[in-house]
């Protein structure tokens, strides 16, 4: 087995590989080709054999299975990745930019003393690694040149297509010293939040409200519009953080993924974690005062204007 150009670390939760794991394979293959070398994948904890089978897709050269523990534990993941890096010397370690990825990738980078770039949306290599990412709430993109000959990268979910096909990767079990019993952060269990009055994922038409609404009392305007349109009200995160709507109304990465026929975003900027929950809507419409709001980049129709002017007119039209 040759030293890999890229070692990608898969993510799974409660028995299931997460989508981003398959996207990592595509990003990893791309980068491995650019650097010139193999793509290796690590799958740590849980049913590693079954996961390795599923991850054995086109372009993967080797899969290292690390049978230790069941669920994600950052001490185990960090230890295992560091031992794998020691043994196989990859130029790049690739992680998902997920909540769990961000719970150990920065520690791995720090402990290996390699530069870290998070939330990559594009990567290129031409004698030097360059990474594209977003800044200022997705209003600008920047390209970063990364010095050195080893890097840690986390990649954004949904940016690369999932790898498909069947691969002929070598699957090898890798024994590690790290012991889950020694972890200083012990997972006690999981809880599903949400429930409540409505399931926004069932709605055909969502009227979704964001921080542009300014005050809790103004929500009435949104409910009036939803009633006139025969639609359901959902929201971005700050509305739920403020306690103005229950958690089950939140659209996004940590809320619900919705795919309605029509998603009307009112006073929502379109942060990546929000978009993750609604980009699959059939028709996206945005009302926002800021012509540069990133929500317009994924919208089908937009009104650049003040919601307090536009929404009352809409209510009138529908009544």
């Amino acid at each position, binding site marked *: 087995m040759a030293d890999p150009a890229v070692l990608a670390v898969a993510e799974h939760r409660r028995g299931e590989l997460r989508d981003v794991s398959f996207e990592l394979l595509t990003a990893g293959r791309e980068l491995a080709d650019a650097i010139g070398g193999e793509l290796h994948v690590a799958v740590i904890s849980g049913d590693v054999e079954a996961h390795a089978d599923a991850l054995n897709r086109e372009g993967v050269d080797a899969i290292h299975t690390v049978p230790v523990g069941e669920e994600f534990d950052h001490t185990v993941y960090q230890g295992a990745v560091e031992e794998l890096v020691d043994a196989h010397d990859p130029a790049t370690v690739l992680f998902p930019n997920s909540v769990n990825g*961000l719970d150990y990738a920065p520690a791995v980078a*720090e402990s290996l003393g390699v530069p870290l770039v998070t939330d990559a949306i594009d990567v290129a290599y031409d004698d030097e690694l360059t990474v594209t990412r977003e800044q200022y709430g997705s209003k600008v993109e920047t390209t970063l040149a990364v010095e050195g000959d080893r890097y840690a990268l986390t990649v954004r979910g949904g940016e690369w297509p999932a790898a498909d096909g069947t691969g002929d990767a070598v699957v090898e079990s890798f024994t590690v010293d790290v012991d889950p019993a020694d972890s200083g952060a012990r997972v006690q269990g999981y*809880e599903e939040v949400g429930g409540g009055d409505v399931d926004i994922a069932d709605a055909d038409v969502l009227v979704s409200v964001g921080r542009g609404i300014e005050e809790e009392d103004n929500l009435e305007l949104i409910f009036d519009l939803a009633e006139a349109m025969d639609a359901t009200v959902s929201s971005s995160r700050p509305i739920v953080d403020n306690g103005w709507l229950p958690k089950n109304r939140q659209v996004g990465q940590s809320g619900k*993924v919705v795919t309605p026929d029509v998603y009307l975003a009112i006073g929502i900027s379109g942060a990546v974690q929000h978009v993750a929950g609604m980009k699959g809507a059939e028709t996206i419409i945005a009302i926002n005062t800021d012509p540069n709001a990133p929500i317009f980049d994924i919208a089908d129709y937009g009104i650049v204007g003040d919601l307090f002017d536009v929404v009352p007119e809409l209510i009138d039209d529908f009544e």
Partner: protein
Amino acid sequence: MKVLVTVKEVAEVGDDFAIEGTDIAEGDLEYDLNEWDDYAIEAGVQLAEAGVADEVVALTIGPERSEETIRMALAKGADRAVRVWDDAIEDAFLDVETKVGLLEAIVDEEEPDLVLSGVQAADDAFGATGVALADRIGFEHAAVVNDLDLDADAGVANVRRELEGGVEELTEVDMPAVLTVQTGLNEPRYASLRGIRQAQRKEIATRDLADIGLSPADVDGALTVTEMYEPESESDAEIIEGDAGEAAGRLTEVLREKGVDA
């Protein structure tokens, strides 16, 4: 118990902005306290009010301008603040590793039992500083915490980590620890007039590189911004023109075509 809260003054771009080289034109930026750090400050202040913390210290890496922001942390109840800055930092791109080096120096001076940071800085959005710092200073950690119950006697923090899709992980974290705070953990207070007055008398200690035993070479990071541009639109949004009445009228047509309220 001493709590150290890392606080960043973040830049926001206005509705209209210009890109000059690899920067936003200075006049087009507005500055504010990072939203996630606001929740971290509140968590620290609540620990003090509950008698669990004896002192809450705010720590920032930022130019003189950021004192305005760090005063907000003081007005909300932090006891004092430390600000790290140096002319040598001005020209560097502060990557995670570099920031961790600066923060570590202050952790060594302050010897906190708990470090609270934000999940991410709204502007750079690396989402990594807290966890990287934990590794450097040998603390335990937990990322994206939206519930915190500290058992100081047992030396553990019982936290909820907010995973994707409405799933929360319940985790017991050994102290000392770095926790990265997610919005919604609490309800950040507004600074009261009294708080704002008191903040004027609180100390903001400033440290340059020499003060903390570092040299300009220590802030010469591995990352260089080579390009900055506005992202291309993925869709071809039809922007509906006209005054509010006209625009709403056209949008109503579109919505009815899509079967809304049919």
